């Protein structure tokens, strides 16, 4: 686009508020390109930070994670970052904090837990619970 959409007048916008996901035309099979290498347009929701809706956030603990991919499958906002079936982290620009990833995490202790937005990842990891014993709730 020639200029940011926020500076455009009525005569410059795309009719019907249609938004193109990528700048230019897509000539290759997108599934062969990792998201970080795709040319997402300014108006793609990939380029839009919507993480400020969140009041609690999932924190990921790589020590206990078994890369089962449950969280990646269930996340409604594709905010679990995984490469080659290995968990890499949470996309905090798009995660809304629904907590679904935590509820589907099968490890003991869980490898994803919800913390208040203001708790740093380091603090969260330092408070991680111990493995529960058999019969312990």
């Amino acid at each position: 686009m020639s200029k940011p959409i926020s500076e455009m007048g009525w005569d410059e916008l795309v009719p019907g508020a249609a938004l193109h996901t990528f700048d230019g035309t897509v000539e290759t099979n997108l599934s062969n390109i990792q998201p970080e290498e795709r040319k997402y347009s300014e108006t793609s929701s990939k380029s839009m930070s919507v993480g400020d809706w969140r009041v609690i956030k999932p924190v990921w603990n790589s020590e206990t994670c078994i890369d089962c991919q449950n969280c990646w499958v269930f996340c409604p906002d594709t905010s679990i970052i995984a490469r080659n079936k290995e968990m890499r982290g949470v996309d905090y620009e798009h995660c809304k904090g629904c907590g679904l990833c935590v509820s589907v995490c099968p490890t003991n202790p869980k490898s994803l837990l919800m913390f208040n937005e203001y708790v740093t990842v380091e603090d969260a990891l330092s408070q991680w619970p111990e493995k529960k014993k058999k019969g312990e709730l």
Partner: protein
Amino acid sequence: MNSRKMELNKVEVWDGNMANSQAFRQADVDVVAAYPITPSTATVENYAMFHANGYIDGEVIMTESEHAAMSGCIGAGAAGGRVATATSSQGLALMIETLYQASGMRIPVVLCLVNRALAAPLNVNGDHSDLYLTRDAGWVSIDAFSPQQAYDMTLMSFRISEHLDVRLPVISNQDGFMTSHTAQNVHPLDDDTASKFVGEYKQVNALLNFEKPVTHGVQTEQDWHFEHKAKQHAALMGAKKVVKEIFAEFKELTGREYKVVESYGMEDAEVAIVCLGSTYETAIVAIDEIKKEEGINVGVVAPRLFRPFPLEEVAAELQTVKAIACMDRSAPGGTVGTLYNEISGALINTPARPLVTNLIYGLGGRDMTVAGLKDIFRQLDKDAKAGKISGNIQKLVGVRGPELSFYNVQGL
């Protein structure tokens, strides 16, 4: 065009619904998603019959409601196909939310709206309640007064809607039963000529164009919504020019001339009525008779194009008359009728200062006869000669019971 052609006679005997169905067939529509309702049922029914008999290459989708019918059209339109549907009355009312989606998303759709009263009380007959319900929906709205015109308008609707400067949905209106179920001589185009006139569908930001992935139906808040609605309004206002161009092209092809504002008897008219739909044709008969029998010079003006409203053309047409009755075939819901507002608004900044009254008539299919129109013309003539409106501005005509009339500004 469809792979199987239909042999048509030079003159066919079609009602308004068949005229719509045949226009759909010749336009080679990709998707007709519909939920039939009286009196537009036969538009869809005939089309489904053509489909069943192998005349239609496109899809016919029977949906679960009118809301779903229009939603199906919007989805298929956004995907990049030519789409059309038909409805009336309650069906239109259920569709109304999606009408705003179609126009806001700038999806070309052709909707044949066979005008019918809105419940309650339930009524299947013709008035303009549903037409008026679409006033602010951002659609181009054109009105046919006969089956021939229904065929012509519906065929031209595709051209208007899909024009690259317009890209807005279009409603092709006709009166329920009076037009939709009255069989008359119709001169159709042959399939090749009609198909050539409508032309190939031109995709704009189609969802099925995988080289340029696109999102339709997005959210815009205070930062962009106003600009998008402004752009939409500009396109709708600009559609008048396109409608005129397409009317001119259609005249070249068929010899049938249409104007954004139709009129009859206005060359020497002292008084005039303004109306929509089949009342225009009844008025032509009444005007010829009353001129001959009583020597009163009267005329009729009807906006062929209802939206975008041809304000300038209407104002120009009404500069020389002394009294005007704006005839609204819809219960106005606590104010004056739409045509009264539109006509008064069109005239207020011009030199003309005619007396303008508002007649509410024909609700739920109540007939407006030649005799009834002559009475209206006689009253207008009296008012014009007296230089003032007798009684109130708004009157309900043709209703049983004591006179019902409202609004009086004399002596202000």
